[in-house]
Protein backbone atom coordinates (compact mmCIF):
# COMPACT_ATOMS: atom_id res chain seq x y z
CA UNK A 1 0.00 0.00 0.00
CA UNK A 2 2.63 2.52 -0.93
CA UNK A 3 1.29 5.85 -1.96
CA UNK A 4 2.97 9.16 -2.18
CA UNK A 5 4.93 10.68 0.65
CA UNK A 6 2.83 13.42 2.21
CA UNK A 7 4.72 16.33 3.64
CA UNK A 8 2.44 16.69 6.65
CA UNK A 9 2.87 13.02 7.56
CA UNK A 10 6.66 13.29 7.28
CA UNK A 11 6.75 16.44 9.36
CA UNK A 12 4.51 14.88 12.01
CA UNK A 13 6.93 11.98 12.49
CA UNK A 14 9.90 14.37 12.38
CA UNK A 15 8.38 16.59 15.06
CA UNK A 16 8.06 13.56 17.29
CA UNK A 17 11.70 12.68 16.76
CA UNK A 18 12.91 16.23 17.30
CA UNK A 19 10.85 16.75 20.47
CA UNK A 20 12.08 13.42 21.83
CA UNK A 21 15.65 14.28 20.91
CA UNK A 22 15.38 17.39 23.07
CA UNK A 23 15.17 15.05 26.06
CA UNK A 24 18.35 13.05 25.29
CA UNK A 25 20.55 15.21 23.05
CA UNK A 26 23.17 15.69 25.76
CA UNK A 27 24.07 12.02 26.06
CA UNK A 28 24.04 11.53 22.29
CA UNK A 29 26.24 14.54 21.70
CA UNK A 30 28.61 13.43 24.45
CA UNK A 31 29.08 9.93 23.04
CA UNK A 32 29.33 11.14 19.44
CA UNK A 33 32.11 13.52 20.42
CA UNK A 34 33.98 11.39 22.90
CA UNK A 35 34.00 8.21 20.81
CA UNK A 36 35.87 9.59 17.77
CA UNK A 37 38.22 11.45 20.07
CA UNK A 38 39.15 8.15 21.72
CA UNK A 39 39.71 6.50 18.33
CA UNK A 40 41.80 9.41 17.17
CA UNK A 41 43.89 9.50 20.29
CA UNK A 42 44.29 5.72 20.52
CA UNK A 43 45.07 5.10 16.86
CA UNK A 44 46.73 8.45 16.21
CA UNK A 45 49.18 8.13 19.09
CA UNK A 46 49.26 4.35 19.18
CA UNK A 47 49.90 3.59 15.52
CA UNK A 48 51.06 7.09 14.81
CA UNK A 49 54.22 6.39 16.83
CA UNK A 50 54.92 3.37 14.60
CA UNK A 51 53.93 4.81 11.24
CA UNK A 52 54.03 8.44 10.25
CA UNK A 53 52.65 8.07 6.73
CA UNK A 54 49.91 5.82 5.40
CA UNK A 55 48.89 5.68 1.75
CA UNK A 56 50.56 9.03 1.24
CA UNK A 57 48.79 10.78 4.13
CA UNK A 58 50.00 11.78 7.56
CA UNK A 59 48.57 9.12 9.84
CA UNK A 60 46.60 11.64 11.93
CA UNK A 61 45.01 12.98 8.73
CA UNK A 62 44.30 9.43 7.59
CA UNK A 63 42.60 8.45 10.85
CA UNK A 64 40.73 11.73 11.34
CA UNK A 65 39.06 11.40 7.96
CA UNK A 66 38.50 7.66 8.38
CA UNK A 67 36.82 8.24 11.71
CA UNK A 68 34.18 10.37 10.01
CA UNK A 69 32.77 7.20 8.46
CA UNK A 70 32.92 5.47 11.83
CA UNK A 71 31.04 8.39 13.36
CA UNK A 72 28.42 8.23 10.62
CA UNK A 73 28.01 4.48 11.08
CA UNK A 74 27.69 4.72 14.86
CA UNK A 75 25.20 7.56 14.74
CA UNK A 76 23.04 5.88 12.12
CA UNK A 77 22.90 2.10 12.12
CA UNK A 78 22.86 1.58 15.90
CA UNK A 79 20.28 4.24 16.82
CA UNK A 80 18.15 2.99 13.92
CA UNK A 81 18.37 -0.64 15.02
CA UNK A 82 17.67 -0.06 18.68
CA UNK A 83 15.30 2.85 18.19
CA UNK A 84 13.11 0.97 15.75
CA UNK A 85 13.06 -2.21 17.78
CA UNK A 86 12.26 -0.43 21.03
CA UNK A 87 9.55 1.66 19.38
CA UNK A 88 7.64 -1.25 17.94
CA UNK A 89 8.35 -3.94 20.50
CA UNK A 90 8.53 -2.23 23.87
CA UNK A 91 7.10 1.27 23.63
CA UNK A 92 4.47 0.43 21.02
CA UNK A 93 5.02 3.89 19.58
CA UNK A 94 4.44 2.73 16.03
CA UNK A 95 0.95 1.51 16.90
CA UNK A 96 0.06 5.08 17.81
CA UNK A 97 1.80 6.68 14.82
CA UNK A 98 0.23 4.29 12.31
CA UNK A 99 -3.21 4.88 13.80
CA UNK A 100 -2.71 8.51 12.74
CA UNK A 101 -2.76 9.41 9.03
CA UNK A 102 0.80 8.16 8.53
CA UNK A 103 1.81 5.13 6.43
CA UNK A 104 4.81 2.86 7.05
CA UNK A 105 6.56 4.37 4.03
CA UNK A 106 6.28 7.85 5.53
CA UNK A 107 7.27 6.62 8.96
CA UNK A 108 10.46 4.97 7.67
CA UNK A 109 11.33 7.90 5.42
CA UNK A 110 10.93 10.54 8.12
CA UNK A 111 12.83 8.57 10.74
CA UNK A 112 15.65 7.87 8.29
CA UNK A 113 15.87 11.53 7.25
CA UNK A 114 16.22 12.50 10.88
CA UNK A 115 18.93 9.88 11.48
CA UNK A 116 20.69 11.04 8.32
CA UNK A 117 20.67 14.65 9.52
CA UNK A 118 22.15 13.63 12.85
CA UNK A 119 24.78 11.49 11.11
CA UNK A 120 25.81 14.38 8.90
CA UNK A 121 26.29 16.56 11.95
CA UNK A 122 27.90 14.06 14.34
CA UNK A 123 29.90 12.42 11.57
CA UNK A 124 31.68 15.71 11.00
CA UNK A 125 32.86 15.98 14.62
CA UNK A 126 36.05 13.89 14.02
CA UNK A 127 37.24 16.48 11.52
CA UNK A 128 36.98 19.18 14.15
CA UNK A 129 38.67 16.96 16.73
CA UNK A 130 41.29 16.12 14.09
CA UNK A 131 42.01 19.80 13.59
CA UNK A 132 42.97 20.01 17.25
CA UNK A 133 45.52 17.27 16.52
CA UNK A 134 46.92 18.92 13.43
CA UNK A 135 44.54 18.23 10.53
CA UNK A 136 44.59 21.19 8.14
CA UNK A 137 41.18 22.71 7.32
CA UNK A 138 40.15 22.64 3.66
CA UNK A 139 37.17 24.06 1.75
CA UNK A 140 36.22 20.61 0.51
CA UNK A 141 35.51 19.61 4.11
CA UNK A 142 32.34 21.69 3.94
CA UNK A 143 30.83 18.89 1.85
CA UNK A 144 31.50 16.30 4.58
CA UNK A 145 28.19 16.89 6.42
CA UNK A 146 26.37 16.16 3.15
CA UNK A 147 28.40 13.02 2.54
CA UNK A 148 27.61 12.03 6.12
CA UNK A 149 23.93 12.74 5.50
CA UNK A 150 23.81 10.50 2.41
CA UNK A 151 25.77 7.68 4.02
CA UNK A 152 23.72 8.04 7.22
CA UNK A 153 20.53 7.72 5.18
CA UNK A 154 21.72 4.35 3.85
CA UNK A 155 22.98 3.04 7.18
CA UNK A 156 19.94 4.35 9.03
CA UNK A 157 17.69 2.49 6.58
CA UNK A 158 19.93 -0.55 7.02
CA UNK A 159 19.43 -0.35 10.80
CA UNK A 160 15.64 -0.17 10.41
CA UNK A 161 15.79 -3.14 8.03
CA UNK A 162 17.81 -5.17 10.55
CA UNK A 163 15.35 -4.28 13.33
CA UNK A 164 12.44 -5.31 11.11
CA UNK A 165 14.03 -8.71 10.42
CA UNK A 166 15.43 -9.86 13.78
CA UNK A 167 13.18 -11.99 15.97
CA UNK A 168 14.42 -10.60 19.26
CA UNK A 169 16.77 -7.90 20.45
CA UNK A 170 19.45 -10.58 21.03
CA UNK A 171 19.67 -10.90 17.25
CA UNK A 172 21.54 -7.59 17.25
CA UNK A 173 24.60 -9.32 18.77
CA UNK A 174 25.00 -11.47 15.66
CA UNK A 175 24.50 -8.55 13.34
CA UNK A 176 26.92 -6.25 15.06
CA UNK A 177 29.69 -8.82 15.52
CA UNK A 178 29.42 -10.69 12.23
CA UNK A 179 28.33 -7.91 9.90
CA UNK A 180 28.95 -4.44 11.24
CA UNK A 181 32.36 -4.94 12.90
CA UNK A 182 34.06 -6.26 9.74
CA UNK A 183 32.36 -3.60 7.65
CA UNK A 184 33.62 -0.95 10.00
CA UNK A 185 37.20 -2.27 10.09
CA UNK A 186 37.58 -3.23 6.43
CA UNK A 187 36.68 0.19 5.10
CA UNK A 188 40.06 1.87 5.02
CA UNK A 189 39.31 3.70 8.26
CA UNK A 190 42.37 2.80 10.36
CA UNK A 191 44.50 1.06 7.75
CA UNK A 192 44.31 1.17 3.96
CA UNK A 193 42.64 -1.69 2.09
CA UNK A 194 45.80 -2.04 -0.01
CA UNK A 195 47.54 -3.67 2.94
CA UNK A 196 44.98 -6.52 2.87
CA UNK A 197 45.02 -9.72 0.75
CA UNK A 198 43.60 -9.27 -2.73
CA UNK A 199 40.28 -11.03 -1.97
CA UNK A 200 39.69 -8.74 1.00
CA UNK A 201 40.37 -5.71 -1.18
CA UNK A 202 37.78 -6.90 -3.67
CA UNK A 203 35.25 -7.44 -0.88
CA UNK A 204 36.09 -4.03 0.53
CA UNK A 205 34.87 -2.46 -2.68
CA UNK A 206 31.41 -3.77 -1.88
CA UNK A 207 31.48 -2.09 1.48
CA UNK A 208 29.49 1.17 1.25
CA UNK A 209 31.45 2.50 4.20
CA UNK A 210 34.67 2.22 2.20
CA UNK A 211 33.21 4.55 -0.42
CA UNK A 212 32.20 6.98 2.29
CA UNK A 213 35.75 6.94 3.69
CA UNK A 214 37.23 7.54 0.24
CA UNK A 215 34.89 10.40 -0.51
CA UNK A 216 35.58 12.12 2.81
CA UNK A 217 39.35 11.79 2.28
CA UNK A 218 39.13 13.20 -1.21
CA UNK A 219 36.90 16.03 0.02
CA UNK A 220 39.55 16.87 2.57
CA UNK A 221 42.72 16.38 0.55
CA UNK A 222 41.71 16.81 -3.09
CA UNK A 223 38.92 15.51 -5.34
CA UNK A 224 39.68 12.58 -7.65
CA UNK A 225 37.25 13.30 -10.50
CA UNK A 226 35.28 10.37 -11.87
CA UNK A 227 36.22 7.95 -9.15
CA UNK A 228 34.53 10.28 -6.65
CA UNK A 229 31.38 10.30 -8.76
CA UNK A 230 31.59 6.51 -8.54
CA UNK A 231 31.91 6.58 -4.74
CA UNK A 232 28.98 8.99 -4.51
CA UNK A 233 26.90 6.76 -6.78
CA UNK A 234 27.56 3.73 -4.59
CA UNK A 235 26.54 5.63 -1.44
CA UNK A 236 23.34 6.90 -3.05
CA UNK A 237 22.54 3.50 -4.57
CA UNK A 238 23.08 1.79 -1.21
CA UNK A 239 20.80 4.35 0.42
CA UNK A 240 18.00 3.87 -2.09
CA UNK A 241 18.09 0.08 -1.90
CA UNK A 242 18.19 -0.01 1.90
CA UNK A 243 15.41 2.60 2.15
CA UNK A 244 13.01 0.59 -0.02
CA UNK A 245 13.91 -2.70 1.71
CA UNK A 246 13.41 -1.13 5.14
CA UNK A 247 9.91 -0.03 4.09
CA UNK A 248 8.96 -3.46 2.73
CA UNK A 249 10.19 -5.37 5.76
CA UNK A 250 8.88 -2.97 8.39
CA UNK A 251 5.51 -3.00 6.64
CA UNK A 252 5.50 -6.78 6.93
CA UNK A 253 6.40 -6.53 10.58
CA UNK A 254 3.90 -3.85 11.55
CA UNK A 255 0.84 -4.57 9.41
CA UNK A 256 -0.84 -7.94 9.92
Amino acid at each position, binding site marked *: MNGRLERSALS*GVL*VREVVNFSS*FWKSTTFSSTVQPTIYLVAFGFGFGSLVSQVAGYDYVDFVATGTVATGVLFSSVFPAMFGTFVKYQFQRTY*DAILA*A*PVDVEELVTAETLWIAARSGLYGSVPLIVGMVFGLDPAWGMLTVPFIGFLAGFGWGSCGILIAAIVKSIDGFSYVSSALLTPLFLVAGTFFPLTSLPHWAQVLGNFNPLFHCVQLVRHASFGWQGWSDIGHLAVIIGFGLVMWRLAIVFLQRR*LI*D
Partner: protein
Amino acid sequence: MSHGLAIRLRGVVKRFGEITAVAGLDLDVPEGTCVGLLGPNGAGKTTTMKMLTAQAIADEGELEVLGHVLPGDSKAARAQCGVVPQLDNLDVTLTTEQNLLVFAHLYRIARAERRAAIDWALDLANLRDRRDTRVDKLSGGMRRRLLIARALVHRPRLLLLDEPTVGLDPQVRQELWALIDNLRSEGTSILMSTHYIEEAQRLADTVTIMSHGSAVAVGPPAELVAKHAGAEAVEVYGPPARLTEVEGVARAQGLRTRRTGTSIAVLGNGHGLDGERRPANLEDVFVLLTGEEIA
Protein backbone atom coordinates in the same frame (compact mmCIF):
# COMPACT_ATOMS: atom_id res chain seq x y z
CA MET B 1 -22.38 9.01 3.79
CA SER B 2 -25.96 8.10 3.18
CA HIS B 3 -26.44 5.21 5.59
CA GLY B 4 -25.57 7.27 8.71
CA LEU B 5 -23.06 4.73 9.96
CA ALA B 6 -19.68 5.71 11.36
CA ILE B 7 -18.52 2.12 11.01
CA ARG B 8 -19.95 -0.55 8.77
CA LEU B 9 -18.44 -4.05 8.58
CA ARG B 10 -19.90 -6.85 6.49
CA GLY B 11 -18.65 -10.43 6.49
CA VAL B 12 -15.17 -9.48 7.64
CA VAL B 13 -12.70 -12.34 7.89
CA LYS B 14 -9.15 -12.20 9.21
CA ARG B 15 -6.90 -15.23 9.42
CA PHE B 16 -3.46 -15.62 10.96
CA GLY B 17 -2.11 -18.78 9.37
CA GLU B 18 -4.33 -21.61 10.60
CA ILE B 19 -6.19 -19.45 13.09
CA THR B 20 -9.25 -17.47 12.06
CA ALA B 21 -9.33 -14.52 14.44
CA VAL B 22 -12.36 -12.82 12.88
CA ALA B 23 -14.84 -15.05 11.10
CA GLY B 24 -17.48 -13.20 9.13
CA LEU B 25 -18.11 -10.25 11.42
CA ASP B 26 -20.93 -7.77 10.77
CA LEU B 27 -20.76 -4.60 12.85
CA ASP B 28 -22.56 -1.25 12.70
CA VAL B 29 -21.77 1.88 14.66
CA PRO B 30 -24.52 4.43 13.91
CA GLU B 31 -23.24 8.00 13.95
CA GLY B 32 -23.34 9.70 17.34
CA THR B 33 -23.78 6.50 19.30
CA CYS B 34 -21.56 4.44 21.52
CA VAL B 35 -21.26 0.76 20.63
CA GLY B 36 -19.70 -1.70 23.02
CA LEU B 37 -17.79 -4.62 21.56
CA LEU B 38 -18.02 -7.25 24.21
CA GLY B 39 -16.37 -10.62 24.23
CA PRO B 40 -14.02 -12.89 26.12
CA ASN B 41 -10.27 -12.81 25.51
CA GLY B 42 -9.51 -14.25 22.11
CA ALA B 43 -12.93 -13.42 20.65
CA GLY B 44 -11.33 -11.17 18.01
CA LYS B 45 -11.97 -7.73 19.52
CA THR B 46 -8.42 -6.45 19.28
CA THR B 47 -7.98 -7.75 15.74
CA THR B 48 -11.21 -5.98 14.80
CA MET B 49 -9.95 -2.73 16.29
CA LYS B 50 -6.67 -3.09 14.38
CA MET B 51 -8.50 -3.61 11.10
CA LEU B 52 -10.35 -0.32 11.59
CA THR B 53 -7.06 1.58 11.40
CA ALA B 54 -5.63 -0.70 8.69
CA GLN B 55 -2.99 -2.05 11.05
CA ALA B 56 -4.42 -5.42 10.16
CA ILE B 57 -5.77 -6.03 6.65
CA ALA B 58 -8.92 -8.12 6.32
CA ASP B 59 -8.76 -11.23 4.12
CA GLU B 60 -12.43 -10.96 3.15
CA GLY B 61 -15.41 -8.67 3.63
CA GLU B 62 -16.28 -4.99 3.43
CA LEU B 63 -15.04 -2.35 5.84
CA GLU B 64 -16.20 1.25 5.84
CA VAL B 65 -15.11 3.87 8.37
CA LEU B 66 -16.70 7.33 8.21
CA GLY B 67 -17.70 6.60 4.63
CA HIS B 68 -14.17 5.65 3.57
CA VAL B 69 -13.63 2.16 2.19
CA LEU B 70 -10.74 0.31 3.86
CA PRO B 71 -7.96 -0.45 3.40
CA GLY B 72 -7.63 1.79 0.32
CA ASP B 73 -8.97 5.00 1.89
CA SER B 74 -7.78 4.20 5.36
CA LYS B 75 -5.58 7.26 5.67
CA ALA B 76 -8.50 9.63 5.15
CA ALA B 77 -10.50 7.68 7.73
CA ARG B 78 -7.63 7.66 10.21
CA ALA B 79 -7.35 11.44 10.01
CA GLN B 80 -10.86 11.69 11.48
CA CYS B 81 -10.49 8.94 14.07
CA GLY B 82 -9.00 9.00 17.53
CA VAL B 83 -7.54 5.80 18.95
CA VAL B 84 -7.03 4.97 22.61
CA PRO B 85 -4.87 1.85 22.75
CA GLN B 86 -5.07 -0.85 25.36
CA LEU B 87 -1.37 -0.49 26.17
CA ASP B 88 -0.06 2.89 27.23
CA ASN B 89 2.33 4.10 24.51
CA LEU B 90 2.89 7.68 25.61
CA ASP B 91 6.38 9.11 25.21
CA VAL B 92 7.40 8.88 28.85
CA THR B 93 10.39 11.22 28.77
CA LEU B 94 8.25 14.01 27.33
CA THR B 95 5.90 16.29 29.20
CA THR B 96 2.12 16.11 29.03
CA GLU B 97 2.05 19.09 26.69
CA GLN B 98 4.81 17.73 24.42
CA ASN B 99 2.89 14.48 23.98
CA LEU B 100 -0.15 16.46 22.86
CA LEU B 101 1.98 18.68 20.64
CA VAL B 102 3.40 15.67 18.80
CA PHE B 103 -0.08 14.33 18.12
CA ALA B 104 -1.34 17.76 17.08
CA HIS B 105 1.30 17.50 14.34
CA LEU B 106 0.63 13.86 13.49
CA TYR B 107 -3.07 14.67 13.08
CA ARG B 108 -2.27 17.74 10.99
CA ILE B 109 -3.84 20.47 13.08
CA ALA B 110 -3.09 23.78 11.40
CA ARG B 111 -0.41 25.87 13.07
CA ALA B 112 -2.84 28.64 14.04
CA GLU B 113 -5.14 26.20 15.85
CA ARG B 114 -2.54 24.03 17.53
CA ARG B 115 -2.21 26.05 20.75
CA ALA B 116 -5.97 26.15 21.31
CA ALA B 117 -6.37 22.44 20.52
CA ILE B 118 -3.73 21.48 23.07
CA ASP B 119 -5.30 23.72 25.75
CA TRP B 120 -8.70 22.25 24.99
CA ALA B 121 -7.39 18.69 25.34
CA LEU B 122 -5.59 19.56 28.59
CA ASP B 123 -8.85 20.95 30.02
CA LEU B 124 -10.83 17.97 28.82
CA ALA B 125 -8.49 15.57 30.62
CA ASN B 126 -8.22 17.90 33.60
CA LEU B 127 -4.45 18.04 33.21
CA ARG B 128 -3.92 21.76 32.78
CA ASP B 129 -1.77 22.07 35.90
CA ARG B 130 0.29 19.08 34.75
CA ARG B 131 1.17 20.42 31.33
CA ASP B 132 4.89 20.63 32.12
CA THR B 133 5.08 17.37 34.08
CA ARG B 134 7.00 14.51 32.49
CA VAL B 135 4.74 11.55 31.75
CA ASP B 136 6.77 9.15 33.90
CA LYS B 137 5.89 11.37 36.88
CA LEU B 138 2.12 11.14 36.29
CA SER B 139 -0.17 8.73 38.14
CA GLY B 140 -1.77 5.81 36.32
CA GLY B 141 -5.11 7.60 36.14
CA MET B 142 -3.54 10.77 34.75
CA ARG B 143 -1.70 8.79 32.11
CA ARG B 144 -4.96 7.19 30.98
CA ARG B 145 -6.63 10.58 30.79
CA LEU B 146 -3.70 11.89 28.78
CA LEU B 147 -3.96 8.90 26.47
CA ILE B 148 -7.61 9.82 25.84
CA ALA B 149 -6.81 13.52 25.47
CA ARG B 150 -4.12 12.63 22.94
CA ALA B 151 -6.70 10.70 20.90
CA LEU B 152 -9.06 13.69 20.97
CA VAL B 153 -6.74 16.61 20.34
CA HIS B 154 -7.83 16.84 16.70
CA ARG B 155 -11.56 16.53 17.58
CA PRO B 156 -12.17 13.23 15.79
CA ARG B 157 -15.65 12.25 14.60
CA LEU B 158 -15.05 8.67 15.69
CA LEU B 159 -13.29 7.43 18.79
CA LEU B 160 -11.94 3.88 19.00
CA LEU B 161 -11.37 2.74 22.57
CA ASP B 162 -9.62 -0.56 23.15
CA GLU B 163 -10.26 -1.70 26.73
CA PRO B 164 -10.18 1.90 27.99
CA THR B 165 -10.27 1.22 31.73
CA VAL B 166 -8.37 -2.04 32.05
CA GLY B 167 -6.26 -2.17 35.20
CA LEU B 168 -7.64 1.03 36.76
CA ASP B 169 -9.14 1.51 40.20
CA PRO B 170 -12.90 2.18 40.49
CA GLN B 171 -12.55 5.95 41.05
CA VAL B 172 -10.46 6.46 37.95
CA ARG B 173 -12.73 4.18 35.97
CA GLN B 174 -15.80 6.25 36.92
CA GLU B 175 -13.97 9.43 35.99
CA LEU B 176 -13.22 8.03 32.55
CA TRP B 177 -16.77 6.84 32.11
CA ALA B 178 -17.99 10.38 32.75
CA LEU B 179 -15.52 11.66 30.16
CA ILE B 180 -16.60 9.12 27.54
CA ASP B 181 -20.29 9.68 28.24
CA ASN B 182 -19.78 13.39 27.81
CA LEU B 183 -18.11 12.91 24.42
CA ARG B 184 -20.94 10.73 23.24
CA SER B 185 -23.50 13.33 24.31
CA GLU B 186 -21.60 15.87 22.21
CA GLY B 187 -22.07 13.71 19.15
CA THR B 188 -18.80 11.77 18.85
CA SER B 189 -19.32 8.23 17.58
CA ILE B 190 -17.61 5.68 19.80
CA LEU B 191 -16.63 2.06 19.41
CA MET B 192 -15.38 0.60 22.65
CA SER B 193 -14.04 -2.88 23.09
CA THR B 194 -14.23 -4.14 26.63
CA HIS B 195 -14.62 -7.23 28.69
CA TYR B 196 -16.01 -5.28 31.63
CA ILE B 197 -19.72 -5.92 31.47
CA GLU B 198 -20.57 -2.99 33.68
CA GLU B 199 -18.69 -0.65 31.38
CA ALA B 200 -20.69 -1.77 28.36
CA GLN B 201 -23.96 -1.65 30.28
CA ARG B 202 -23.38 1.93 31.45
CA LEU B 203 -21.90 3.49 28.34
CA ALA B 204 -23.07 1.63 25.29
CA ASP B 205 -26.24 2.44 23.36
CA THR B 206 -25.92 -0.91 21.66
CA VAL B 207 -23.72 -3.88 22.39
CA THR B 208 -22.28 -6.42 20.01
CA ILE B 209 -21.25 -9.61 21.75
CA MET B 210 -18.44 -11.40 19.96
CA SER B 211 -17.49 -15.01 20.31
CA HIS B 212 -14.96 -16.92 18.21
CA GLY B 213 -14.62 -14.09 15.74
CA SER B 214 -18.22 -13.26 14.95
CA ALA B 215 -21.18 -11.40 16.45
CA VAL B 216 -23.46 -13.68 18.43
CA ALA B 217 -25.87 -10.98 19.67
CA VAL B 218 -26.53 -7.34 18.84
CA GLY B 219 -28.82 -4.85 20.55
CA PRO B 220 -29.29 -2.35 23.37
CA PRO B 221 -28.12 -3.89 26.67
CA ALA B 222 -31.62 -4.01 28.20
CA GLU B 223 -33.10 -5.73 25.15
CA LEU B 224 -30.33 -8.31 25.07
CA VAL B 225 -30.94 -9.09 28.72
CA ALA B 226 -34.70 -9.43 28.21
CA LYS B 227 -34.26 -11.56 25.12
CA HIS B 228 -31.49 -13.90 26.19
CA ALA B 229 -31.63 -13.98 30.00
CA GLY B 230 -35.22 -13.10 30.87
CA ALA B 231 -36.35 -10.88 33.73
CA GLU B 232 -34.70 -12.35 36.76
CA ALA B 233 -32.33 -14.93 38.14
CA VAL B 234 -31.88 -16.74 41.41
CA GLU B 235 -28.39 -16.88 42.81
CA VAL B 236 -27.72 -19.89 45.03
CA TYR B 237 -24.63 -19.98 47.23
CA GLY B 238 -23.11 -23.03 48.85
CA PRO B 239 -20.30 -25.58 48.80
CA PRO B 240 -19.39 -27.07 45.40
CA ALA B 241 -21.41 -30.24 46.01
CA ARG B 242 -24.52 -28.17 46.75
CA LEU B 243 -24.01 -26.10 43.60
CA THR B 244 -23.77 -29.22 41.45
CA GLU B 245 -26.98 -30.51 43.03
CA VAL B 246 -28.82 -27.22 42.36
CA GLU B 247 -27.53 -27.25 38.81
CA GLY B 248 -29.04 -30.70 38.32
CA VAL B 249 -32.39 -29.73 39.81
CA ALA B 250 -32.65 -26.54 37.74
CA ARG B 251 -31.72 -28.25 34.51
CA ALA B 252 -34.27 -30.95 35.18
CA GLN B 253 -36.87 -28.18 35.29
CA GLY B 254 -35.59 -26.94 31.94
CA LEU B 255 -33.99 -23.82 33.42
CA ARG B 256 -30.70 -22.43 32.23
CA THR B 257 -27.88 -21.99 34.71
CA ARG B 258 -24.44 -20.52 34.86
CA ARG B 259 -21.64 -20.76 37.38
CA THR B 260 -20.33 -17.51 38.81
CA GLY B 261 -17.44 -19.03 40.73
CA THR B 262 -18.93 -18.80 44.21
CA SER B 263 -22.55 -19.43 43.33
CA ILE B 264 -24.80 -20.77 40.68
CA ALA B 265 -27.21 -18.46 38.89
CA VAL B 266 -30.46 -20.01 37.76
CA LEU B 267 -32.20 -17.95 35.10
CA GLY B 268 -35.99 -17.65 35.18
CA ASN B 269 -37.94 -17.62 38.40
CA GLY B 270 -36.46 -20.84 39.77
CA HIS B 271 -39.45 -22.03 41.83
CA GLY B 272 -38.57 -23.49 45.14
CA LEU B 273 -34.89 -22.69 44.98
CA ASP B 274 -33.40 -21.24 48.11
CA GLY B 275 -31.34 -18.26 46.99
CA GLU B 276 -31.14 -14.57 46.28
CA ARG B 277 -33.46 -13.18 43.64
CA ARG B 278 -31.99 -10.50 41.41
CA PRO B 279 -32.76 -8.97 38.00
CA ALA B 280 -31.05 -10.72 35.12
CA ASN B 281 -28.10 -8.74 33.75
CA LEU B 282 -25.78 -8.42 30.79
CA GLU B 283 -23.22 -10.67 32.41
CA ASP B 284 -25.76 -13.49 32.33
CA VAL B 285 -26.23 -12.90 28.61
CA PHE B 286 -22.50 -12.69 28.06
CA VAL B 287 -21.72 -15.99 29.76
CA LEU B 288 -24.72 -17.79 28.25
CA LEU B 289 -23.74 -16.74 24.74
CA THR B 290 -19.98 -16.99 24.89
CA GLY B 291 -19.78 -20.14 27.00
CA GLU B 292 -18.41 -20.85 30.44
CA GLU B 293 -15.17 -22.47 29.40
CA ILE B 294 -12.10 -20.34 29.21
CA ALA B 295 -10.50 -20.75 25.82
